[in-house]
């Protein structure tokens, strides 16, 4: 087992993930750059979403899902025996592929659904405003905070989900193809948001879209499923280098569209 010397906030070591007997990800060792956007790219079924879901222990809510190896958050293995997954998920927030605001809560209550406990009404309001501002949504919703989030557009709903994650004051933000269900304009807004949020958070984002990875990330990791369907990390490098001078032949094939 190789030990990675890292001062990074979030890293994995020999991480493998399974659904029952089927292995989805094998032996990934990677460190994510602090306060930067790291992109996970690769074709469908390469295990990038599964890898992401291991980083906040949401992978294990699936029946029979399990993990081997370790994920280090600030040096501590989040899969250690005495670690509470709920505590981890408060430190590692997540935004999903499809916007998933809580349908029965108002926009305001969505935002502060998991804000730190013990806030009074005014502090809650301030926390909500701060989160909604940092998700670039405040101006659009400030007059309808008490209304249902389902009336918002898809892009607004996704930014609400980002605000909700930000309000919990995490250290890391995981984003699972956050623009997959959005139109190009809403996508541009979210991408801009990622660039501003990474000043405060360590962001790991899965994306299908190579241009998006090139636009928003400073580090890119390329994953690929081997011939048995198990996802492996092929290469990780500065985004600029990975897209111009990849060191692995398979990465080059993929980014140049010669992927078989």
């Amino acid at each position: 087992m190789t030990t990675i010397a890292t001062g990074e906030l979030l890293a994995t070591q020999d991480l493998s993930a399974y659904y029952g007997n089927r292995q989805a990800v094998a032996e990934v060792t990677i460190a994510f750059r602090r306060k930067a956007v790291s992109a996970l790219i690769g074709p469908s079924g390469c295990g990038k979403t599964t890898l992401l879901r291991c980083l906040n222990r949401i992978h294990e809510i699936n029946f029979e899902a399990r993990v081997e190896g370790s994920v280090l958050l600030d040096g501590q293995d989040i899969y250690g025996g005495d670690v509470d997954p709920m505590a981890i998920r408060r430190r590692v927030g997540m935004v999903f592929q499809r916007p998933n605001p809580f349908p029965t809560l108002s926009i305001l209550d969505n935002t502060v659904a998991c804000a730190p406990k013990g806030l009074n009404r005014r502090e809650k309001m301030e926390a909500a405003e701060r989160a909604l501002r940092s998700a670039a949504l405040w101006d659009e919703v400030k007059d309808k905070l008490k209304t249902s989030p389902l009336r918002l557009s898809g892009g607004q709903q996704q930014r609400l989900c980002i605000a909700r994650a930000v309000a919990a004051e995490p250290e890391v933000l995981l984003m699972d193809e956050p623009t997959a269900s959005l139109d190009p304009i809403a996508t541009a807004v979210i991408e801009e948001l990622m660039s501003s949020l990474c000043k405060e958070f360590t962001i790991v984002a899965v994306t299908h879209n190579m241009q998006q990875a090139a636009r928003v990330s400073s580090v890119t990791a390329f994953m690929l499923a081997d011939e048995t369907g198990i996802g492996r990390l092929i290469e990780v490098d500065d985004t600029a280098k990975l897209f111009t001078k990849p060191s692995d032949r398979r990465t080059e094939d993929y980014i140049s569209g010669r992927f078989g």
Partner: protein
Amino acid sequence: MAQSASKNRNLARRRLIGGLGIAVALACAMIGAVCLLIILGFVIVQGAGALNRDFLTQLPHPVGVPGGGVGNGILGTFIILGIATAMAVPIGLLTGIYLSLFGRGPIPEALRFLSDVLSGVPSIAIGLFAYAVLVAPLKHFSAFSASFAFMMLMLPLLVRTSEQAIRSVPQTVREGALALGMSNFRATVRIVLPTARPAIITALLLAIARVIGETAPLLFTAFGSQFWETNPNNPMAVLALQVFTYAISPYPNWQAQAWAGALLLIGAVFVLSLGARLMLRRAMRGLEA
């Protein structure tokens, strides 16, 4: 040419069979609907005459004295159903939550199976059970024993439908709550359950509609009463029971009141079902987004 002719013949045959199928299905649907309308019409014709304010608000009169009503039975129905609902909802809902959260494995499977069996047990057997555990040992009939029987009748419906309602909430909503660091239980109670609420209320209304006209289990539990009885520890009048007693009596006055009581029960089921449909429509709207 020959080929296309056979093709045409084939098509004509398929059209004919398709048309026949639709006609048969339509006829069956009509038979069902017509039966229902006949029953409804019959009950209205027979019962509407005796349905008046006195009937709804007064105590039964002794045989031979005209007038009187089933006011105490209506009250008793509300009391017994209220207690049954108050017991069945928490048990049924929590079991539904348990099944939806920890759905696999031998214990949940056994629970589901038992609940299905319970829903098939004849109501008179349930009443007998209530008699054996709550009436015979205490040596007196009581409204509470009837509530207990009703609870047993409502439980399977509540358990299975609340499980389904909770499961029908999109997984992404649950994941969103868990990803924020909520516990499984809190995510269910605070986020998933409210989303499933209209569907759960629908199930509750249908469960009440299912038991409101039940008579068999009342025969040896609530037993009936001639008075305004509100103590659940005592025998109590129930509308369905009064319908039964009056219907088999030889007095035309009582028989007319039995019809009116039946009309009331059908009306209650109608209102409950309508409410259930409205709630269901809301539930569908909520889940679309």
